[in-house]
């Protein structure tokens, strides 16, 4: 896909101006369709849109095309669907798996006349979404901050790692006042020494958590930082697989897991990570992908509403970021970042084919025996 953003989304490792998700549409033998989405992030899972298409076409789809899909009528059966897609190798190809899993799940649920909220009942009747302030010029960031304040967002994540971090955070704290929950996300931009100093400096600004202070690397280094940190630490790029989670838990290297459906390989794997986190006393943040469409937002909403202990949620920006979204329903959050579980059939959104067509950068059609056209 190539849906333009209303304004660019920038953090320390990337500057994004369009949604470049891969949307997967599956059809069963009765013509019922399901839609899934994966957002490739080379610097997280090593995926690009093209590598996702290749992996879907050459590995994932051929393994499922000829087989009967398991029915999914309960949360427990989500694991069967994950198994149906096959094993994965480490943290590679997570977004591809997520896209296919969600598409098949959407299809299977619609075939059964079910909503995803029936197999994964929400534990909360509303999710509160955070605003995310990107790492652009400070005056623009503050203007955006004023807009977020106006619409009642009271949980804000600040992208940092571009050199003016402390001044930026101070200015944003001053804008939002002492009551707002502020956290920062460095996307791995700081060195160990920089991170140590920043954590000390940020402690005076009542920061709720600091995300990915170091680049994904040895967990021992993160453990060392965590041991002396005055602020809670969130892992994002360091948390892609269950193996990552176990290592982080064993080393006591984090206070929060940022679990994102696309990054973590789909809904089932995300739920498992959330469960393991809670078991280990680690708090859960349900994250998102900048520029995700309504499909991934709906999956994220499902996850955020269902996890036992949700501390922060991100996503569901919809047309606040995308110039146009792909669903009939608006998935965007409302005033104060509030959004309710989506209880429609399947994942809860009705995808508009004409929007997919209008914004498709390329289309690959796969049949039972391989590619039909591209």
């Amino acid at each position, binding site marked *: 896909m190539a849906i*333009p*953003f*209303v*304004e*660019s989304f*920038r953090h320390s490792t990337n500057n994004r*101006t369009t949604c470049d998700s891969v949307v997967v549409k599956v059809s069963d033998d009765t013509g019922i369709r399901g839609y899934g989405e994966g957002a490739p992030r080379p610097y997280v899972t090593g995926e690009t849109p093209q590598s996702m298409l290749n992996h879907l076409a050459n590995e994932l789809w051929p393994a499922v095309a000829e087989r009967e899909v398991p029915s999914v009528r309960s949360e427990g059966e989500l694991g069967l669907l994950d198994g149906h897609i096959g094993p994965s190798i480490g943290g590679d190809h997570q977004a591809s798996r997520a896209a296919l899993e969600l598409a098949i799940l959407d299809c299977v649920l619609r075939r059964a006349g079910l909503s995803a909220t029936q197999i994964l009942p929400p534990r909360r009747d509303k999710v509160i979404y955070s605003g995310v302030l990107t790492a*652009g*010029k400070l005056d*623009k960031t503050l*203007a955006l901050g*004023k*807009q977020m304040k*106006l*619409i*009642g967002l009271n949980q804000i994540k600040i992208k940092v790692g571009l050199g003016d971090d402390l001044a930026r955070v101070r200015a944003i704290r001053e804008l939002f006042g002492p009551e707002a929950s502020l956290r920062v996300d460095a996307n791995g931009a700081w060195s160990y020494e920089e991170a140590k100093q920043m954590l000390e400096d940020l402690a005076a600004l009542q920061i709720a958590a600091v995300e990915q202070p170091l680049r994904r690397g040895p967990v021992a280094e993160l453990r060392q930082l965590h041991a002396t940190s005055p602020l809670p630490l969130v892992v994002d790029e360091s948390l892609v697989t269950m193996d990552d989670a176990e290592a982080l838990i064993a080393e006591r290297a984090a206070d929060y897991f940022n679990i994102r459906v696309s990054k973590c390989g789909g809904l089932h794997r995300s739920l498992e990570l959330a469960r393991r986190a809670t078991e280990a006393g680690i708090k859960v943040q349900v994250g998102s992908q900048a520029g995700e469409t309504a499909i991934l937002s709906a999956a994220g909403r499902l996850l955020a509403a269902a996890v036992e202990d949700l501390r922060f949620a991100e996503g569901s920006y919809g047309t606040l970021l995308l*110039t146009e979204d792909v669903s009939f329903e*608006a998935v*965007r*959050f*409302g*005033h104060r970042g*509030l*959004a309710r579980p989506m209880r429609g059939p399947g994942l809860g959104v009705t995808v508009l084919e004409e929007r997919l067509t209008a914004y498709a950068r390329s289309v690959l059609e796969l049949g039972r025996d391989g590619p039909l056209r591209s």
Partner: protein
Amino acid sequence: MDLRQEIESLYERHVAQFSDHEAFRSLEEGRTSEEDQDRFLANLVRTHLKSPQILAFLYSLAPPASADSLLHNMLEELGIDDSEGVSHPSLLRQLAEGAGLAPVLPELERLAEWDLRRITVDPLLYETLNEFGFAALCEVTAFEFMLSRLSSRIAGAFSQHRGLDDKTLLWFTLHSEVDIGHAEQGLDNLVHYAHYYDFDGARALTIIEMVMRENVFIKRYLGISGATSE
């Protein structure tokens, strides 16, 4: 802060962005394909077909100082406030038909209806209706402002390069004539509204900046991203 001046400056910048856009210049200079001309007209028709309904909503929220002008706008759109007796939506249909777009008119009506529905069903971003109303007034006034400056140029382009006649282009003519006055009144209405509903200048400007985060003229008429770059 002079709110009226701030708003006018913002509108002027966006109008300039629109008229400087390659697609607009191409249209004006006759370099646009007929297909793209059709797309422009279809988008324009879709954008304004439900203007009476939007104005009715704005009239319902109007501060006393603006009530008469918003009522007048609405009645003019409906064609029942002046001797012309022509509703502006019917002029848009006339535009579409004169340009050979009659076959797509039902689809444009459906899309305009859907756009209106979305306004009602989308989750509210603002805390109260008066902020939402201000946002809507901002966008309507922005279009009046733009049309008062560019309507004749657009009509001229379609007359010269597409051969559309005066009757087909009447919406532009009528709209440009009324919109000069409406544009000025519109800026005043925004100030009246902000004052009546106790918005301070900064809050009013924040709402306007949210509405105009992307260039609404580029987005709606050209059907492409109106994203502003840093």
